[in-house]
C-alpha cells in the first residue's frame, strides 16, 4: 500500500497528474471510488478485497476528464479496459498514468503502455472461475431451459441501465437504446424490451467485454447480465482466439475478420 500511496503522492506533488482515481473506504464499510486532487489526501487511498469496481469507467466521464491528466489504480480488468479505451481512441495513452495492482494486491510499476501490455500477456485472461462454472452449467441446459432461465431473470429488469453505466466500454454519448428513429428497443421495461436490450448490449460488447463483471454487480435487481457478455468473451476466444484488451492497437473482433473463420451453420 505504501507504494501506491507514495506514488500517487509523488504524481500529484510533481503535477504529473491532476487527479488520482482510486479506492477509499466508504461510510458503509464498502470501498468507494476516490478522486484525489490534493497530494495531502492520498493517505485515504486503500486497496484490499473490497476494491472490485472497474474504475476505468470514469476515464471517459466528462466530469473526470475536466481535472486533466489522471492516474488510475488498476487491477487486471481495469488495465484491460484501459487498453480497450485506448484502442478505441476514447482515452489517450499520454493522458493517463497507470498505478498497477497485481492479483495479490501488490503495487506494480506500469511505466507505459508497453509494460502494461507485457503484464497483461502474462495473466490468465479467461472469465473468473466462478462465472465460468455458472456459464458451463447454463450451457448444459436445454434450449427451453435456457429460455426460461433468462426470461425469468430478464423479467426483473427495470431498464435502469445501471449495467450500461457501470461498463467502461459503454461510453457512447447516445446509446442505441435511445435511438427512436427507428425505435430499435421498445421503451417500456417489459419482457420484450428487456430481452431486446440485453441482446443488444451483449452483441455490442462482443469482442470488447474484458470480463470484469461490473455490469452484474451494478444491477440493482441482481440479474446476472454479466454472464451474457462473459459468454460472448468466452466464445470470442473460442472462435477467434482473441481476448479483448490485450493491445492498444485497433483490433476489435467484430470489425475485423479472417477469411478462414470457422463456422458450421452457414449452408
Amino acid at each position, binding site marked *: 500500500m505504501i507504494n501506491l500511496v507514495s506514488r500517487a503522492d509523488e504524481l500529484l506533488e510533481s503535477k504529473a497528474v491532476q487527479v488520482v482515481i482510486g479506492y477509499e473506504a466508504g461510510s458503509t464499510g464498502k470501498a468507494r471510488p476516490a478522486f484525489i486532487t490534493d497530494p495531502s489526501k492520498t493517505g485515504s487511498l486503500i486497496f484490499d478485497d473490497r476494491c472490485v469496481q472497474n474504475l476505468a469507467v470514469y476515464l471517459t466521464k466528462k466530469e473526470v476528464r475536466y481535472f486533466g491528466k489522471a492516474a488510475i489504480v488498476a487491477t487486471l480488468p481495469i488495465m484491460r479496459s484501459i487498453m480497450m479505451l485506448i484502442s*478505441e*481512441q*476514447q482515452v489517450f495513452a499520454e493522458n493517463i498514468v497507470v498505478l498497477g495492482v497485481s492479483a495479490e494486491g501488490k503495487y506494480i510499476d506500469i511505466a507505459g503502455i508497453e509494460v502494461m501490455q507485457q503484464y497483461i500477456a502474462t495473466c490468465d485472461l479467461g472469465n473468473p472461475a466462478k462465472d465460468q462454472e455458472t456459464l458451463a452449467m447454463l450451457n448444459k441446459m436445454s434450449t427451453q431451459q435456457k429460455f426460461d432461465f433468462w426470461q425469468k431473470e430478464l423479467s426483473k429488469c427495470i431498464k435502469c441501465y445501471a449495467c450500461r453505466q457501470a461498463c467502461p466500454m459503454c*461510453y*457512447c*454519448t*447516445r*446509446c*442505441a437504446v435511445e*435511438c427512436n*428513429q*427507428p425505435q*430499435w428497443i421498445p421503451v417500456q421495461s417489459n419482457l420484450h424490451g428487456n430481452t431486446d436490450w440485453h441482446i443488444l448490449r451483449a452483441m*455490442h460488447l462482443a469482442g470488447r467485454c474484458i470480463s470484469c463483471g461490473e455490469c452484474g454487480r451494478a444491477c440493482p435487481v441482481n440479474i446476472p447480465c454479466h454472464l451474457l457478455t462473459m459468454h460472448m468473451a468466452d466464445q470470442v476466444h473460442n472462435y477467434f482466439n482473441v481476448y479483448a484488451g490485450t493491445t492498444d492497437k*485497433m483490433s*476489435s473482433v*467484430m*470489425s*475485423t475478420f479472417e477469411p478462414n473463420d470457422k463456422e458450421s451453420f452457414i449452408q
Partner: protein
Amino acid sequence: MARIGVFVCHCGENISATVDCHKVAETVGKLKHVAFSTDYKYMCSDPGQTLIKEAIKEHNLTGIVVSACSPRMHEPTFRKAAAEAGLNPFLCEMANLREHCSWVHEKNDMTTDKAIDLVRTLVEKVKINSALQPIKVPVTKTALVIGGGIAGIQSALDIANTGHKVILVERSPSIGGHMSQLSETFPTLDCSQCILTPRMVEVAQHPNITLYTYAEVEGLDGFIGNFTVKIRKKSKSLDEKICTGCGLCTTKCPQKKIPNEFEEGLGFRPAIYVPFPQAVPNKPVIDREHCTYYIKGKCKVCEVVCPTKAIRFDQPDEVIEVQIGAIVIATGFDIKRADFFPEYGFGKYKDVIDGLQFERLASASGPTSGAILRPSDGQVPKNIVFVACAGSRDPAKGIAYCSKICCMYTAKHAMLYKHKVHEGKASIFYMDIRSAGKNYEEFVRRAIEEDYVNYIRGRVSTIYERDGKLIVKGVDTLLGGQPVEIVADMVVLATAGVANHGAEELAQRLHVSYDSHKFFAEAHPKLKPVETNTAGIFLAGACQNPKDIPDSVSQASGAAVKVAALFSQNELTREPLVAFVNRTAPPLYSTCVGCFLCQSVCPYQAIEREDFKTRDGKIIKTVAKINEGLCQGCGTCVALCRSKSIDLHGYTNNQMYTEVMALLNEY
C-alpha cells in the same frame, strides 16, 4: 403528406398469369397515402412509361412503386422515367413481382397475397425515401504510372497518346525493367533490346510524359480523380541538366568491383554507373552505399574527370507532391534466387544459376558477350540441365501457384544453348509443359524435335558437386519413376516468379489489397482483372501475378483505356447510395463517439476523421466522416456502428426497419 403512386405491370402474361394484378393494384390503392394505383400490360413500354410520367404530374406524386420485374433489370429505366417527370429518381422503388413471385409460384390467392405484401412493403419504404442528388467528383487529368518495365512503359505511352499527362516513376536509375535484361524472347526469338529500346526512347521524348527515375512513391492521399502523391526523387549526386552522359566518370571510377544488378551478379560495375548501355535516361548515378567518397570521405575522381562539372556530392533527396487522377501500378515481379533452394545447395554452387542469369549469359550485350560459359571457370558447359518449376507449384515451399512463364523461357533457354553449343546436351526436368499461347506449343515442339532438347518429366530431388561436376538427381516419371542421374556442367533453375521486393509496403501506401503472396489483388478475378478495389487505381503486368510480355502489354493497354475513360469526363458522377455520419446540434455535433472501429471494417478506406474545433482551434470532438468519393455503399459500417451514428442512403436504418414492419404486419 406523402402521395404515392403504384404501377402494377402484367408483363404481358408473365406476371398476370399467376398474380391477380388488378387485385394487387386495387388492394394497394386503398392503403393510406396511396394517391394513385393502376395496372397495365407493359409498364416498361413507351405508353407504360408515359402513363407513369403523367400520373406523377397529374397526381403530384411524392414517390412511386413500380411493381414489375427485378429492379436489377429495369430500375434504371423507371428511375429515368421518374426523373423525366420531375420526380427525384431515388423516390422510385421497384417491387419484384416477376422473378420473385409470379415465375416461382403457383397461381393462387397466396401468390397474389405475397405480391400485395411485396408492393405494400415498398410503398411503406418509399414514403420515407429521401430525394438524393448524384455525387459529382472533379477529375485531375494526370495519371501516375508506377514502374518503368514494359507494362509501365506501354501504359504510360498509351495514356500519353490520348492527350493526357503521365508521370512515370521508376525506382532504379533506368526504365526497361526485366525485359531489358532478356536476351531473346519467345516464341519468335527476336532480340528483347531491339524491340524494347525504341519504346524506352519514346517515353523519354514524349511531350506528355514526365519521367522520374531513381524515384519512389512515398505516400498517397485522396481518392479517385483526386489523389495527391508524394514522390521521393533519390539524389543521383549529379546535375542531370549539365551532364551530357559522356560516361567518362564511369570508366575512371576506382571502385570497380560492385556486383552488377543488371547482370544479375555475373559482372561488375563502378560506383558511378549507368545500369546498361541503352539506359534511359542515359546518365549515371552515384551508388552512395558503395562510393569511396561516401564511405571514406575522399576520392572525388568523378568530379575531377567530369568535363562539365556535373557531379554534386551534397545533392539531397527531393520529395515532391503531385496531383493526379488515376494510378497504374506496374511494379513487376522478381524471381526466387538459387539461395532459396536448400536441396540445390543454397546458392553455393557457382554453376547453379537462375533464369535471369542465363538470360544475361545468352545476351549479346551480357558479361560473356553472348557466349554460354560456366560462371565458375569460364568453360563452355557440355552438358546443361534446366529445372522447371523450381519453387513454383510447390506448396511445401509456400508457392502453390504456377509461375506461368518458366515453361516457355526454359524451352527458349535450351534452344539458345543448343544454337550456341551445337554439340552440347541439354536436358529439362519438368512437371507439365504449359505452353498455352499463340505459337507457344509449336515453339516447344521445335525445341524437342529440331533442337533435340531432352525433356524429362519428373522433379529433381538434389543437386550436389563432385569433382567439379554437378550431379543432378531426379526421377523420370514417364519411365515408371525410374531414378535419373545426370552429371552436368551447369544447371539453370527456372525459379518461381514472386512479388517484387517492396510490393507489400507499396500496396499499404496505396491502400490497395494484395494476396497472400504479396501480389497486387484485382477487384474481380474474371470481370475486373485490371481494376483494384480502390477506385482509380489499376494494375498492369506482373505485379498482379507472373505474366509474359504479350500478357503484360495487353493488360497495360487495358489499364490505359480505363484511365482514359476516367479522364474523358470533367466530373465523375456517382450514385449517391453512400454512407453518412449523422449530425446533431452542438455540443454533441454527432452521436458518433469516434471509436473508429468502422475504419477497420471499411473495405475502401472511405472513413476519415473529422475534427470539430473551437474558434481558437482546440479540438472538441473527433468523429467519423465518410468520403463520398470512395464509399461504395456496402453498409457494413452501418450494421457495425453501435450508436447507430452511420447510416446508408437508400438503405437507411429507418427504411429497412420500416420494410420489416410492413412486410410482417397486417394492413
